[in-house]
């Protein structure tokens, strides 16, 4: 197959792209002089994929929450043993992760790269589940779920998503619950696997010190040809409103923690990227360490160094989040809203816009200084239907007017929600209560 060169004149860098006859999209970024190689093999399936049908099935199949993550765990097992044992022979460090909208299998290696790539492509394409092995995993994943139940950062975030979204499955925990995973069977795993782990629905990224010809040879040897499957996720109606205005949970923490979210209209592709970059500039100008609001909140003791913001987006969801520790989260919410409302009236200055855009350029560039960063950027961009260099191009075309328009159309108080973790009093283990 022929690979085309995707080049950025601005950065004087390039990578190779090709679509294999199996449907697999392949992105290769040789980085001569580096020691390591970082490869990711990803499928467009995450925790939000809880109901689907294909061009081969008539009805929607509903699957238990947490199945994509469960599948990720189980793929590491084959009839001959554990996938880790394949990587152990090469010294590569292998891992995997499941997010809301993707599952990626990866390794990092400094030698025997082709062998490691062969291992990666092989284990992901050869599922092996039995009743016994599926059953056994419930203990380990159950422990993982419980570990997260004790993690206030994770809980404050998950509770916020539950408050922001009525129907969208992003409101469901990535790993599911101990109860939901108890319904997962080998048959269901196979059904999910054959639906989503079709090469037509997958991306392979390799970055670092490697020979593209040698890598392509391994790819050709290892790809398993199958008929393409088109997946149709079950549509759901997600209202523009939030589900709850406020949600509180008590945990063993030292001080209250909060996450404040603004629900925005979901976008895709380059439109989403443009919105993300505009939000990044806005958030830096209005709430970053250079801003007067940050100084007021920090010096007033309302927030501390843990304060931060994030543009959270994926298939069918987009929201802007603020989080941190605060003794009075409601007051932080009020002050943030006030500052955002004022900025909607006054706009931001050209000087602030220019400076934040320059800083964002530096941050994006910094992301490409490491092999792992390049691989992650390539995978994220491809999964979102854009190119890695689009960020740099779109950033250079952002305008003050566009950013101000984005500001005026966002941060609606009526479409925001606040999640708070309150410190438990001594033996207080009260379950989560929901308000609003």
């Amino acid at each position, binding site marked *: 197959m022929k690979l085309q060169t995707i080049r950025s004149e601005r950065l004087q860098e390039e990578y190779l792209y090709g679509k294999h006859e199996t449907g697999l999209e392949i992105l290769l970024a040789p980085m001569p002089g*580096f020691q390591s190689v970082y490869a990711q093999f990803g499928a467009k399936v995450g925790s939000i994929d809880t109901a689907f049908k294909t061009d081969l099935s008539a009805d929607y199949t509903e699957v238990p929450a947490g199945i994509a993550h469960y599948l990720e765990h189980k793929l590491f097992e084959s009839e001959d043993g554990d996938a880790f044992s394949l990587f*152990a022979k090469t010294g590569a460090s292998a891992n995997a992760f499941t997010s809301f909208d993707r599952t990626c299998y990866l390794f990092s290696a400094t030698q025997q790269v082709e062998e490691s790539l062969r291992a990666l492509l092989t284990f992901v394409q050869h599922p092996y589940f039995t009743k016994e092995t599926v059953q056994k995993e*419930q203990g380990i994943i159950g422990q993982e779920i419980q570990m997260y139940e004790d993690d206030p950062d994770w809980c404050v975030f998950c509770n916020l998503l539950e408050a922001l979204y009525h129907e969208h499955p992003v409101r469901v925990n990535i790993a599911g619950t101990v109860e939901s995973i108890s319904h997962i069977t080998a048959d269901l795993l196979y059904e999910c696997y054959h639906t989503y782990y079709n090469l037509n629905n997958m991306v392979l990224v390799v970055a670092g010190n490697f020979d593209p010809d040698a890598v392509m040879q391994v790819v050709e040897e290892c790809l398993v040809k199958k008929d393409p499957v088109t997946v149709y996720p079950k549509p759901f109606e997600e209202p523009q409103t939030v589900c709850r205005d406020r949600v509180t949970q008590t945990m063993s923490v030292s001080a209250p923690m909060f996450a404040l979210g603004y629900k925005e209209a979901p976008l895709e592709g380059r439109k989403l990227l443009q919105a993300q970059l505009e939000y990044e500039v806005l958030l830096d100008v209005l709430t*970053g360490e250079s801003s007067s609001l940050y100084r007021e909140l920090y*010096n007033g003791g309302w927030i501390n160094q843990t304060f931060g913001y994030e543009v959270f987006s994926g298939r069918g969801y987009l929201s802007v989040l603020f989080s941190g*520790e605060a003794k009075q989260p409601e007051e932080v919410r009020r002050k943030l809203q006030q500052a955002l409302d004022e900025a909607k009236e006054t706009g931001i200055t050209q000087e602030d816009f220019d400076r934040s855009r320059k800083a964002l350029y530096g941050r994006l560039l910094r992301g490409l200084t490491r092999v792992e960063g390049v691989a992650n950027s390539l995978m994220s961009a491809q999964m979102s239907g854009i190119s890695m260099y689009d960020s740099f191009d779109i950033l250079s075309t952002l305008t003050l007017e566009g950013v101000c328009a984005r500001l005026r159309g966002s941060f609606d108080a009526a479409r925001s929600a606040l999640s708070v973790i309150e410190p438990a009093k001594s033996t207080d283990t009260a379950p989560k209560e929901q308000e609003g």
Partner: protein
Amino acid sequence: MGTFTRTSCGNEVYFNCILDSRFKTNRISVQFVVPLREETAAAYALLPNILRKRSANYPDFSAFNRMLAAMYGAYVDYGVDKIGDAQVLYLLGNTIDDRYTFDGEAVTAKLAGVLRELIFHPPLTDGCLDAEEVELEKTLQIDNLLAELNDKRAYAVRRSVEALCADDPHGLSKVGTKEQIAALTAKQLTDAWQKLLSEARVEVCFTGCGDPKPVEEELVRPLTKLSREPVPFVANTLIRLPNPPLSTVEKMPVTQAKLVLHYATDTLAGRENTAPLQMMSMLLGGSPMSKLFVHVREEKSLCYYCLSRINNYKGLLTIESGVELHQVEDAKAAIFEQVEAMRQGAFTDEELHQATLYLENAYRSLYDAQASLESHYLRQVLVQEPEAPEERIAKLQAVTRDEIIEAAQKLSLASIYLLTGEEA
């Protein structure tokens, strides 16, 4: 490829350089190394939080950050580490290299100048650090200290070390106690700042692709011109082994228990060859192929994580695990079984080979990340002549099966710490 050079500039000031044209950014760090002491820990630890915010020539926090943002999002980071019996305070700056700026701006030299101003010229009123700012940062530091409770896994490890090292500097909090922080005054902080500049061993490090010369001029030279009285101390010492092993149980409302075991070894970095112990820990609990992962997690499904690591500055091997409340005893027994297996040499040549490969990969990967490479060298220089990742790999490859068994046989259980639910 990541060439490391180290120059002694006199009076315990060192200039370290890791140069590599592949990097796109430059990292400039200044580390102050002092003994971790009850009387100075709190004041020293608070200094980076204050110094990082502004300087006499940039007295406004927001304006200072705007200036950094205009340097293509350059940033200043700061903090405190505990390494063995040493307290390490640091300020560092990171910027993209000059060649990636739109008009060839000398941002790297400028950043070195920014760090110089932060460290040597904080805003002073009547020769004293700003009292209001000190009060604010004290409050935030206390909040941070208390917030250590939020991450149960890290909390459990820290509490277990405090219990085991109660009579040892390593058992002290790296930021001091709540009471010590609360008692600090602006005058004490100002004195501590001057004392730190005088008594610390200072490691300046440049990691990147640019020219290190401005760093030498802006940071190293002013340090060598100061009249300094560095305090000599040893950062690596063995703990006193409790007999019988210490047992600590702490209860709080958690859904998962945390089990932390400490074993004493007699192996210290800079004194002994630590490679056999490192290999032993790797086989025991350092990778997904290790005994703890395979037997305790995968075979018995007892926990989500179960791993071992070594602290070469205190001669400790630590095993930590997250376990369901009612399975703690089973997990403990399973862990003991695997430690015993290591003592009996129950590992194959293949496993040994694989553990070596895994570590080779980890060490070679260090060359690709500036922060990891810097940390690799700067942690070593505290106690020994630094070795390059390649040299470390050669030592690991030379480790024999017998040396690993010997390292396992020398493990003495020092403490068992358990964080568990209130009803467990």
